[in-house]
């Protein structure tokens, strides 16, 4: 009798969010795979009947080049983010309590600041009339005619800028829990500082590192605003193509087909991490964190 009521309560509490997410997340995502096989209708809608037009259009080599570029940009931006985020996360975790709160807040504020505004801030300082361009020309580092905007470099720079706070926070969270006596022990046993960092600290915060890589790499794959605002025609990514198919060509099925490519690109690193963690989980029984 009591179990029966418990079950009823569980269903009652689960149902609202479950139904909502099934209806507005699960079903639409599945629908993309189906609707990609429909013909486009000339008014920007979805026609009747079935066609392979989308799949044929996806075979166009331009899409392969763009998919490759998207992967490359995301990978580079993630690598730079990690190089900056690991020392920062470490430093914030090791600061005194009062300074740590201040530093943490300084990292969190950009996190809450409007994404568009942060991208726009870079557009205006990289602008030909902007402060960085003028400074670089003044120092003779850049030709007066060179453009700092509308290229892949600008896209990577601004992607790093917008995603860096997301990378710092999980590394900080892991570094805060790390037992720093382990580093002292390694040093006492003769490890040089960098060696102790690499062989003791990094494996100790592995969970934070994995999270940081995922929270930068996956959104970067779907990046649309950054290449749209600071990139040029030579730095378009998958996200730009999806938006163009929706807003310019009004070909929804093809936009859907391109999103399937993106979904596959997103799933690959996620599944890789899951598989690796399962393997690691078997090696170290009982401790999901992989801490020694």
């Amino acid at each position, binding site marked *: 009798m009591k179990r029966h009521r418990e079950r009823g309560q569980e269903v009652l509490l689960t149902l609202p*969010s479950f139904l909502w997410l099934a209806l507005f997340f699960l079903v639409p995502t599945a629908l993309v795979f189906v609707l990609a096989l429909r013909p486009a209708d000339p008014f920007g809608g979805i026609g009747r009947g079935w066609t392979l037009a989308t799949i044929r259009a996806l075979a166009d080599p331009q899409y392969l080049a763009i998919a490759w570029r998207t992967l490359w940009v995301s990978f580079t931006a993630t690598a730079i983010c990690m190089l900056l985020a690991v020392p920062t996360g470490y430093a914030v975790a090791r600061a005194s309590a009062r300074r740590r709160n201040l530093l943490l807040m300084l990292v969190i504020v950009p996190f809450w600041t409007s994404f568009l505004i942060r991208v*726009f801030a870079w557009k205006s300082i990289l602008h030909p*009339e902007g402060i960085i361009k003028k400074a670089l020309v003044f120092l003779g580092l850049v030709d007066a005619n060179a453009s700092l905007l509308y290229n892949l470099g600008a896209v990577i720079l601004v992607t790093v800028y917008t995603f860096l706070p997301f990378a710092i926070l999980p590394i900080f969270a892991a570094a805060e829990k790390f037992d720093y006596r382990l580093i002292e022990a390694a040093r006492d046993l003769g490890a040089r500082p960098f060696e102790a960092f690499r062989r003791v600290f990094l494996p100790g915060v592995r969970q934070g590192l994995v999270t940081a890589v995922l929270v930068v790499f996956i959104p970067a794959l779907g990046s649309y605003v950054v290449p749209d605002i600071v990139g040029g025609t030579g730095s378009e990514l998958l996200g730009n193509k999806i938006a163009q198919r929706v807003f310019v060509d009004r070909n929804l099925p093809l936009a859907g087909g391109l999103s399937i490519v993106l979904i596959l690109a997103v799933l690959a690193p996620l599944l890789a991490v899951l598989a690796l963690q399962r393997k690691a989980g078997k090696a170290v029984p009982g401790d999901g964190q992989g801490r020694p």
Partner: protein
Amino acid sequence: MRRSRFPFIMTGVVLVFFYLPILILVVDSFNSSRFGGAWRGFSLRWYARLFREPAIWESARNTLFIALLVTFASLVLGTTSALALHRFSRSRLQRFHYTLVYTPLVVPEILMGISLLMAFVACGIRLGMLTIILAHVTFCVSYVALTVLGRLQDFDFTIVEAARDLGASSWMAARRVLLPMLAPGLAAAGLIAFTLSVDDFVITFFVAGPGATTLPIRVYSMIKHGATPLINALSTLLLALTFTMVLISQRLSESGALKSRTAEQT
């Protein structure tokens, strides 16, 4: 043992990197010059212009209306979800439920935008305020659910049991004991939902249709059409708002921690 100074220097560099562009933008909003880069004297003319742009204020009103509705709806859906996930954590239904709540967080925004757009078009739903609200609730629910779930995991449920032992009905215990103690967590989750809704551009852009304009969509078209000094002024106002909200949320989480600590002692 001497610690390496390198991480601390790097942190300084990162913070300069974070704040320099924002600082330049704020300073430029008071620059009388049409282009940044050259200082032509202090002026509030861009702010004055901003207040004469009815389109901006209309989109701000839309944004606020959407965000308030979305915050309320996602708080209700997210809190029930978190309660279910916490109380019945061992059931198989909840494992699936958790995956369903968690996945939207790792999906790039553009995918959620395009899939919702295709679903709305396929079902013949007219794009506008309604579709924006439906889309926003969908991505806010997950954030609310996981934030509240985090609070529930630190929560001492023996207090609720004590209330039940003293004769409170389960509804009474939820309303008089659980909710008040959970209030700071709910406020933090609500603030996250509100900010996400106000700030969202990509998903909104996909499902908005021609009729409904929110503030980020307005800002985007201003960026695209080069109304630079106006965006500087608008951004500065939004930044001031953000800083205030972060301060408030910091206070809330501090007082929340304080409350649960005093609750433990009594």
